[in-house]
């Protein structure tokens, strides 16, 4: 028994490279050999889906991209899934970016969904307004007058020359607002400066860690639903019936979480054995 306890204490100071190796394996293996775990949509994801379902063909949705390559695995799948849902319903999509790298994320998502999948026409079905520095000031400017913030879109076309920009002058002209956000400026600023003052229905998709910060707005009804991290993306993909990167990533995330929990439990067992021995001697 003592020998076994010795082994447990020794394992408590496991080399971190072993931990890294185990994590690498449990993340990589499920990507190659999917477990196919069923996805259960949460109420907050269902709320986002219902809000988009209420939109009619020709309605206008403003989607803001506030994330970069670092948080792409978490947020990009939900942006893609949301765009799929919007284009499926023939909603007109207007895209802004509060982060400079958000513009590249938006371009990639649009190429994948609007161009390759739904064959939508630029300027008629969707428009990429692009990035402007200024965070909250940009949002406030959009609420007041879009043309004072953007005179041209990301492709250099004048806003007045874009067919779908006709009669679109401020945030209040939109029927729906979605913020794909990984931090500041992002969801919180959109609620405070755009959705709340104008009363436009707003939903959001954030990183898992941001859900805590945004949840009070969801509970108060200022935000209609939230997609939280990769699980939120997977849930949305299952709701629209188009599994994507989010769904395939959930197996890896599930197993990785399980292994981290196992590490925590094992670390605690080792800690208790060591503490008991220290008390004894």
């Amino acid at each position, binding site marked *: 028994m003592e020998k076994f306890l010795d082994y447990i204490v020794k394992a408590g100071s496991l080399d971190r490279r072993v931990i890294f190796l185990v994590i690498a394996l449990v993340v990589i293996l499920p990507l190659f050999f999917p477990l196919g775990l069923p996805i259960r949509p949460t109420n907050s994801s269902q709320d986002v889906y219902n809000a988009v379902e209420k939109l009619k063909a020709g309605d206008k949705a403003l989607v803001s991209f506030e994330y970069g390559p670092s948080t792409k695995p978490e947020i990009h799948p939900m942006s893609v899934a949301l765009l799929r849902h919007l284009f499926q319903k023939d909603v007109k999509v207007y895209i802004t970016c509060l982060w400079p790298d958000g513009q*590249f994320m938006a371009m990639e998502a649009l190429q994948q969904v609007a161009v390759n999948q739904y064959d939508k026409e630029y300027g008629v079905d969707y428009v990429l307004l692009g990035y402007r520095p200024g965070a909250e*000031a940009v949002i406030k400017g959009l609420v007041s007058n879009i043309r*004072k913030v953007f005179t041209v879109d990301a492709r250099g076309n004048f806003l007045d020359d874009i067919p779908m920009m006709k009669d679109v002058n401020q945030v209040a002209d939109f029927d729906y607002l979605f913020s794909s956000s990984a931090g500041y400026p992002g969801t919180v600023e959109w609620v405070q400066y755009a959705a709340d003052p104008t009363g436009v229905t707003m939903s959001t998709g954030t990183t898992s860690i941001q859900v805590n910060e945004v949840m009070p707005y969801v509970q108060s009804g200022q935000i209609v639903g939230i997609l939280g991290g990769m699980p939120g993306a997977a849930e949305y993909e299952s709701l629209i019936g188009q599994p994507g990167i989010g769904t395939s990533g959930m197996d890896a995330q599930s197993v990785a979480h399980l292994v981290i*929990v196992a590490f925590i439990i094992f670390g605690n067992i080792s800690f208790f054995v060591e503490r008991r021995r220290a008390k004894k001697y």
Partner: protein
Amino acid sequence: MFFKRQLPIAIAATIGFLTLFGWFVDEPVIKSFVDDDATQWFDILASFAMFLGALNLLKMQALKVVKQQKGWPYAALAIAGFMFSFTAGFILLGSYNVEISQYDDPAKVATVLAAEINLDQKSAENILIAMPEGDTYLIETPYFTKKGADKVVAEINAAGGMANMRATEWGSHISTRGSLFNWMFRFIFTPLSATMFALLAFFVASASFRAFKIRNFEATLLLISGIIIMLGRVPIGGHISAWFILYIVVLALGAGVNSYWKDRTYTLVAVVGGLLMVTIAGFIMGWPVDQPAIFYLPVLQDWIYNNPNVAGARAIMIGIGLGIFATSIRYILGIEKSYIGE
């Protein structure tokens, strides 16, 4: 002194008061200033701030290199990276397209086209044949240099076709797929940035193993809620039966009874009695995975998110709000002068 001290304070106070009044006074001139002009000023200032930030980065890193401080090769690399992206974004256009408008012999032009768009000879020929008369065919992937595009134009013209080079408009070259800047973003910045963030998974696992210990009541609470969130948030959590959690709760209860009374009989009664009760209840209810709901991980996770978490988040938000309000008032009244270096 006036220009360095009094004037900036006066400007901050005046603009601060005007902005504040914009929310409370229904005066169109003030409202227009707050909603339109002030935000535009801010946008312009933010653009300059980015410029200043870039200069500051260069200055700091250059000083590190010049003084050969610790880690100076990384600073040199940062400067090189900055210079490369600056050149790709501001100096080199890095996006030239080739457009084919006419051809005499499709087979000859297709030989050049096939090599450029990575297609076989037949497919390239079909593209040219399908091109309506008077229309043009644009090679979608742009060339980084004008020289590269000109070379292809010359090859097509030599093969009996007619092609011309078209440079992407300045500004939109950043977002043009395949341009030098775009290439840099997709193939250098994106993988580097994603790699840095992905490292977190490894460090979180290692740190949890070493530091997440049951040392006291607060740490135990944090650990249990952390485990519930981690498992309840992912699909695998939905497969862990509520009865399994209930059994763990009974065992934890036994541990509590043991540490409180330090009597083996009490502990045995608590554990065996608890296990029996759970088993009997399980047989009666038919062992549904998600019942009793309060022990089902996804439900527990939802409860933690929506109750203790929101309560904490609200308290923090109210605190931050009050802090912002107090600081803003200090700025407006000229009490806070850190922005002028005091």
